[in-house]
């Protein structure tokens, strides 16, 4: 159970004045009110992708320009009001969870594409443009924006920058950080700074790199310049199913060892295969313990060649089934189950926690065995989805939110998995961020010295700790946060 800091009573008492002031900074527009203050409409912002935690904010502002964002921040800085930035609110770690005394700054109305330049291979977009919206804007010329989180239909590029999001294809194309050229950054004081731009490398300190993945701790991003890439000539997938997690892990090692880097290399364990098959009828082998989806790129002959080589490698590991797509449609069919994995698990169990540790890839069999044992002892089911090439593991822990004990167990189970990830040489989060969810586990991965150093860097940007506080860093030890109370309850 995660605690939030006690709301600032003086700020709560000034609520009406604050709302009035904010309305002068962000006026109503053609798309609706610039400031939301009524309890019913605030509920739309009370949670994010980690829906077990809910807390309506003091107010929500929906600016339409960098100037408005800067004005709101300047005001909140002067008045010492906490701020929670928000994109689409799909964070799975509670990164966008409001605080009772905080103003949520929602970037969704800043959704214009400002510039697309195919010759320089870049696009300049506002922070509220969706991830898929960028690719859609450039796809006509055969280009795409590479990082592709499964939430790409909804999540926004500003949120992607702040979480350093990954996707199924980051094995080849890297995560968000490697695909950014610049941002328009607004400091807590309301200063607007351009960082980076159309060029590749920074001279001087790499502020862009530090801001990426900083979970709204350092400032707001209102515009983003991304690299766009020319799409490959084509892509095709295959499916390989094995008798055990160990054998599937060995097949992954052998593929990487052959010098082939597939664009995607996804692993599913038995419960995940069954959940996805029941949901999507993708023809997954139900007698398998583990299944790989492997995708390669190139023209048709190159695809045949690479898939042939990979199939030959898989054949050395006595596969239960091997299915190489002949056509684009067959590829889509292979992906169909995996892409619907969250929905599939959601059908078996309406409530689940999606964990996100990373492990050294060679540790997979050991880690899955331990997770299986934990599942038995907690009495909760779990399905595992794994980005096998890069070690990012997503156990989906199923629980019943109507039963507080079940929720408590699910959180404890999740914490145990993440501790295990750190123990075997990995980390707490590969792409979903720390947020509130993993905040209190930070000292499993970091020493007190290391956390103090990270906090000092946050303080350099945000001396009063007004920006998205109560996330990322355990509350005890934070310089500017009041004593805590158990302010949130799981919804029922």
């Amino acid at each position, binding site marked *: 159970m995660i605690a939030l800091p006690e709301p600032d009573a003086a700020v709560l008492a000034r609520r009406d004045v604050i709302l009035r002031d904010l309305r002068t900074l962000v006026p109503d527009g053609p798309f609706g009110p610039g400031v939301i203050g009524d309890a019913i409409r605030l509920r739309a912002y009370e949670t994010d992708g980690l829906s077990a935690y809910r807390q309506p904010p003091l107010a929500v502002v929906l600016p339409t320009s960098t100037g408005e964002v800067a004005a709101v921040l300047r005001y909140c800085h002067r008045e010492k009001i906490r701020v929670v930035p928000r994109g689409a609110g799909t964070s799975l770690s509670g990164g966008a969870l409001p605080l009772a005394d905080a103003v949520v700054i929602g970037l969704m109305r800043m959704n214009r594409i400002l510039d697309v*330049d195919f*010759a*320089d*291979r870049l696009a300049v977009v506002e922070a509220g443009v969706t991830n898929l919206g960028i690719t859609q804007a450039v796809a006509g010329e055969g*280009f795409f924006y590479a990082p592709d989180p499964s939430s790409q239909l909804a999540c926004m590029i500003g949120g992607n920058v702040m*979480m*350093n999001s*990954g996707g199924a294809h*980051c094995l080849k194309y*890297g995560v968000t*950080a*490697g*695909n950014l050229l610049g941002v328009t950054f607004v*400091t807590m*004081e309301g*200063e607007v*700074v351009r960082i980076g*731009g*159309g*060029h*590749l*490398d*920074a*001279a*001087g*300190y*790499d502020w*862009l*790199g*530090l801001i*990426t*993945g900083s979970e709204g701790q350092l400032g707001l991003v209102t515009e983003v310049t991304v690299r766009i890439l*020319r*799409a490959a000539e084509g892509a095709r997938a295959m499916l390989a199913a094995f008798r055990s997690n160990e054998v599937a892990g060995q097949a992954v090692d052998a593929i990487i*060892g052959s*010098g082939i*880097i597939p664009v995607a290399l996804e692993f599913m364990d038995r419960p995940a295969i069954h959940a996805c098959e029941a949901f999507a009828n993708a023809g997954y082998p139900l007698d398998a313990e583990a299944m790989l989806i492997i995708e390669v790129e*190139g023209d048709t002959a190159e695809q045949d*060649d690479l898939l042939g080589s990979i199939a030959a490698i898989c054949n050395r590991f006595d596969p239960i089934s091997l299915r190489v797509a002949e056509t684009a449609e067959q590829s889509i069919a292979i992906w169909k189950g995996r892409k619907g994995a969250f929905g599939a698990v959601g059908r078996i169990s309406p409530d689940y926690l999606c964990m996100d540790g*990373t*492990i050294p890839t*060679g540790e997979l069999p050991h880690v899955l065995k331990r997770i299986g044992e934990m599942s038995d002892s907690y009495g909760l089911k779990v399905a595992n989805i794994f980005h096998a090439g*890069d*070690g*990012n593991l997503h156990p989906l822990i199923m629980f019943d939110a109507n039963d507080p004990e079940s929720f408590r167990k699910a959180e404890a189970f999740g914490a145990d998995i993440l501790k295990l990830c750190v123990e075997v*040489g*990995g980390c*707490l989060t*590969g*792409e*979903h*961020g*720390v947020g509130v969810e993993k905040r209190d586990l930070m000292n499993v*991965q*970091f*020493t007190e010295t290391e*956390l103090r*150093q*990270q906090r000092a860097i946050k303080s350099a940007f945000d001396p009063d700790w007004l920006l998205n506080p109560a996330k*990322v860093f355990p509350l005890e030890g934070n310089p500017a946060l009041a004593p805590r109370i158990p302010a949130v309850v799981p919804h029922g």
Partner: protein
Amino acid sequence: MAERLCPPDEAGVIEAVRQAAADGTPLAVEGNGSKRAMLRPVQAGRTLSTAALSGITLYRPAELILSARAGTPLAEIEAELERHNQMIPAEPPDFAALFGHAIPSTIGGMVAANLSGPRRIGPGGALRDQLLGIRMVTGHAELVRSGGRVHKNVTGLDLCKLLAGSHGTLGVMTEVTLKLVPRPEGSLSLAVAVPGLEEGIAALSAGLGSPYGVTGAALLPSGIPSGMPIGMPGGPSLPGSPVAVLRLEDFRRFLPRRAEALRGLLSRFGDVQLIGEEDSAGLWRQVRDAALLEPAPDQMVWRISVRPSRAPDLARRLDAAFEARLLLDWGGGLVWATGSASIAAHEAVVAAVAEAGGVFTLFRAPDPLRAAVPVLPAEAVALAAIAGRVKAALDPAGVLNPGRMRA
């Protein structure tokens, strides 16, 4: 000669920094000192070198990761990777010739300067994108780790990115972990002579915007160096006029078709010639190390990062100001410039780069000059204030490489 400390272990680095902070003696932080001539000269009573912290500590070819102590020579790492047909994707350069010495780079120094070669434009990105983890000693004389040994990690603030390119001013890295990729089986290049820089950049853009997997895109303003045979045996070389060169790398069996397709795409820019594997490798080494720039020993060298389409205009301005010699890489996004050492030339670079919306690093200059001018672009006021606080957070006594990046 200032005292030079080469602690053999992390504890020794901690002790050296503790001592420096306690008695307020600044430290010149370096590996082997191969890039000492970069940026501003450091005035320090003592040098703290990581040279004795050497050796690969973890290499897992199947996991595509390698950890090494900061002082490990880059060449040692590359030799080990070569045995497993792997490489550091960023293609780190070797600037010994450019700096006129034979000192080998250490991996820690390479990371601290965040230097990448031609493959920077590929999907692997810059050296900093391949930096998975660091161990460092801060100015508090404390050990701090960031990242780790796994490919995907967003736990906490990313100090790896902050330290990469910080030139020893925020901490002394003692160990780094890098992401690797398999070494492509084959490579070749296509060269096309173009009338001018605009056309050259357009040719590179056409290649980089193609689906054939171009992993190098350079523009040589005065052509291929004589003595480098290209094309068919006995075919013409391309001296004098600018030449755009594009590299393809992959399994050998895929290259002929892609080269043909790329040739078709480039043919509207001029006569396209094929450069075979061996010559191609030699040429890209010279691009990577900026050897083709051939600056005279007393000349200045700038490394400029710019939006590619702005490069031709930038080049014209530099040419008008001081007849700069240039070498362009990264599809035109990296401009190397050299010319006679003078404050006026430097001011011309500062102005032209600002106009083009890019950034510069004064890479090499006579000591008095590089001590007198800003070697990096000025930071926005709000960022400069944050930078001061970040530096104070990591090095409160200001003992790590004072003055190296900014006066």
